[in-house]
């Protein structure tokens, strides 16, 4: 869902942006750059994401003062300091809850949450799933590096089983979450995945998320070159990425490999999906990606390719990227505003004196008697 080239009109065309004031003049990445020195480790994937976000935001044509970034705790959560918008660096795991209050009370804001795999899925897992089920108008960017960076290298809820870290010298025992499976299970209306190093793809996913009305969860595979370097190398290495990445595009057959040599097929017996080389005989059976499908079943099944469990270890493998799911559902903050409007229409604007008086009041006269 690319934005129209006439970006100034984007806000008018999409309900997610419709209530947000527009920028008077065209903006550039520079307008969105704060005066703060960026303090991530040299080589961190966060730099690429920050650059991609800063150069993409001007496209939305929104008034900068109506954009808010809210984050939790972790390396990625320093993000708001580096953007010249309103921002809050909050506490560990709670950004979706704080952003829910902000977005619910201010439908004229574009509210973004920046979080990491530990922040969103471990300490803040509860808030994430509830934001998704409510479908608050939030854009959640989940930087997944499969490690705790800021606390210096413990395993995270997305680390593969057996991960050897400072806190797991004999290998971790926890089975990991796949964030997008979790999101689909929680009823998310927009679910996408992208990679820090592929700016073009990253920005295309951000655009789609920005114009989605409701909660959008974007998982960004992000390399932590200090504590988990190369976690996504398979998806980045020119020698392997064509077979490892399944690029999803709505309405297109799900093909991958060099020149689309492989495809995704449905197993008629089980309803599950499998991958196979495409031949003349089976090419018509390659499934066509439908991001707007009513049922989340196929999106969920596609996402299972991302973490194939072999020998008990979930590894990066044939990972779908792009928009897995984008559907419409009533939006929480809009509905709450509608309830307020309905109450005013039904009962009139609040009359404080009448509410204070209640229905069982009595008058005491100068003689002290009712």
């Amino acid at each position, binding site marked *: 869902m690319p934005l129209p080239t006439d970006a100034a009109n984007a806000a008018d065309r999409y309900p997610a942006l419709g209530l947000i004031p527009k920028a008077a003049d065209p903006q550039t990445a520079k307008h969105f750059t704060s005066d703060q020195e960026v303090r991530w480790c040299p080589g961190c994937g966060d730099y690429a994401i920050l650059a991609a976000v800063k150069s993409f935001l001007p496209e939305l044509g929104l008034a900068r003062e109506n954009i808010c970034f809210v984050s939790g705790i972790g390396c990625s959560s320093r993000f708001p*300091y580096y953007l010249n918008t309103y*921002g809050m660096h909050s506490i560990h795991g709670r950004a979706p809850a704080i952003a829910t*209050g902000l977005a619910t009370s201010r439908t004229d804001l574009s509210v973004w949450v920046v979080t990491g795999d530990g922040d969103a899925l471990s300490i803040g897992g509860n808030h994430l799933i509830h934001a998704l089920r409510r479908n608050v108008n939030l854009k959640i960017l989940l930087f997944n590096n499969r490690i705790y960076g800021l606390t210096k290298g413990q395993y995270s809820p997305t680390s593969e089983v057996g991960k050897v870290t400072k806190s797991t010298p004999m290998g971790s025992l926890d089975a990991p979450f796949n964030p997008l499976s979790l999101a689909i299970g929680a009823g998310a209306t927009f679910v996408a995945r992208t990679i820090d190093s592929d700016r073009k793809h990253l920005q295309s996913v951000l655009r789609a998320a920005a114009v989605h009305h409701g909660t959008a969860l974007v998982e960004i595979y992000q390399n932590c070159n200090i504590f988990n370097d190369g976690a996504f190398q398979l998806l980045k290495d020119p020698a392997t990425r064509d077979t490892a990445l399944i690029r999803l595009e709505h309405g297109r057959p799900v093909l991958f490999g060099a020149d689309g040599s492989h495809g995704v097929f449905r197993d008629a017996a089980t309803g599950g999906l499998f991958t196979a080389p495409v031949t003349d005989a089976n090419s018509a059976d390659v499934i066509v990606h439908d991001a707007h499908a009513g049922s989340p079943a196929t999106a969920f099944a596609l996402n299972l390719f991302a973490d194939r469990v072999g020998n008990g270890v979930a590894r990066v493998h044939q990972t779908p990227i792009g928009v897995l799911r984008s559907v419409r559902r009533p939006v929480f903050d809009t509905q709450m505003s509608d309830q307020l409007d309905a109450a005013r229409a039904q009962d009139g604007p609040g009359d404080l004196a009448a*509410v204070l008086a209640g229905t*069982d009041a009595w008058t005491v006269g100068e003689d*002290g008697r009712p």
Partner: protein
Amino acid sequence: MTAHTEQVLRLDRVVIRFAGDSGDGIQLTGDRFTTATAEFGNDLSTLPNFPAEIRAPAGTLPGVSSFQLHFADHDVLTPGDEPDVLVAMNPAALKANLPDISRGAEIIVNTDEFTKRAMARVGYSADPLQDGSLEAYSVHPVALTTLTVEALAGSGLARKDAERAKNMFALGLLSWMYHRPTLGTERFLLAKFAKTPELAAANIAALKAGWNYGETTEDFAVSYEIAPATTAFAAGRYRNISGNLALSLGLLAASQQSGLPLFLGSYPITPASDILHELSRHKNFGVRTFQAEDEIAAIGAALGAAFGGALGATTTSGPGVALKSETIGLAVSLELPLLIIGIQRGGPSTGLPTKTEQADLLQAMYGRNGESPVPVLAPATAAECFTAALDATRIALTYRTPVFLLSDGYLANGSEPWRIPGTAELPVLRPDFATEANRPDGGFWPYQRDPETLARPWAVPGTPGLEHRVGGIEKQDGTGNISYDPANHERMVRIRQAKIDGVAVPDLAVDDPTGNARLLVLGWGSTYGPIAAGVRQVRSTGGRVAQAHLRHLNPFPANLGHVLAGYERVLVPELNLGQLAHLIRAKYLVDARSLTQVSGLPFTARQLTDVLTVQLEALHAPAH
């Protein structure tokens, strides 16, 4: 309906307790009697007391629910120590409440429930109505269930449904005994059962049958008149109000007076949930109520809304406060207005959800990491919860700070008459949003402070040119940029403390009519009523005692040290193990004495009278 009875006795005060199974409609019965009593013009105070279980096993001691009402022809300070009348709907209610009843009191029992099995269930080996064990009381055996069912014989209701109206029969009987009007209850029932008119008719019929029973049966030869409390009330318009309702209306008024939309983030918890329920009914005031996934999200959403320029509030009780602590610390660091309303209950842990306690004072004061000062207020009465909400909002907005408002289960559910303020009497509250740059170069510093209040500017998203970032990491004084500089942290910690220390609170008023008392009794929060009643009693027999009551616990009133120094002895009654006493001993080096109770119940006036008497005797005893 009018009473036609031979004998009418005039009383100056009565304490009635209704008691029965938690499914018997006891709270509703008490509420209706209270409303009628308020409309009649008596002063009153109520004490609902119910189990945490919604429908505990019927007929058991843990399942007993009660509602006590004290009403008088003069001003009333407490719900009363000992009931003069007990209405016991079953053996469990009799057994559970008898220890509180003074000898000579009237006991009305529903004899239908006194079956062998029901009595055995609560440990009665013999029928207490027959075995003489109640000889010290004036017992009225009434077959409440049978009489109700008979009265509804023509109603077409099944027996089981007809039986459910027995609480209205009891209410009718008590209304006859005390000359209470019943028209209001009839209107109430018509509205409550608007969709099932047959139930409305049945309940009204039961109510009238109860009244008529009192009038005709010889067992109730006497009825009582308690004249309106003509000296208790200044002229004005009144309603009966509970603490939780008063607090809800106070928040609504604070929103209107400040022009800020109210955002309440809350997670259901006893005894705070009624505030969420009440405010969710006022969406036409622009109130947004958000039932969050947990306590942390509830305050998080409220803080997010405050960042966006709303009047953010969260309501909870002790265990919920514990979960919110980290976010309160964030609000301290962000220096944003936020109301944290704690309706205290018995603790620790889950404790006693439906019983009252004041043991969260130190939690509110200190229950956070780091130096994290927060203003703390505590209303003294149910009605005062209204003004406390407005005052808490004033402090939050003026000083850009989270504010703790501590109520408790006793204030929350108890009720009393409240003079309804005119909207012109309400304070004007100013959010004073920042709208312009505050630096000579046209820049904006989010932590550039007001020199008087030390408050920082509140610039809300949507304000062009004031884009800024805030966070929980220590920030540089002025710019708000991240700073780990030792001298800066030292400075910021001290500034945040100085800001709260400088919050303007009124001086503590002392009630010392003779001006030469040597004993001061100092209370806070809901102990006001019992303390004032005890003080009044002691004074009536010539005892000289001064009373003062703290509404502001952080900061303390500026004159508190001076007040404390003026008395030889200071007694601090509180429903904990001495938390306020601990604070004032530490701050003022005063040898305060504690009177503590943690039974889940408020003090009685008699307890205070006795303790004050002992203290006075000790003070005035000749030295050896």
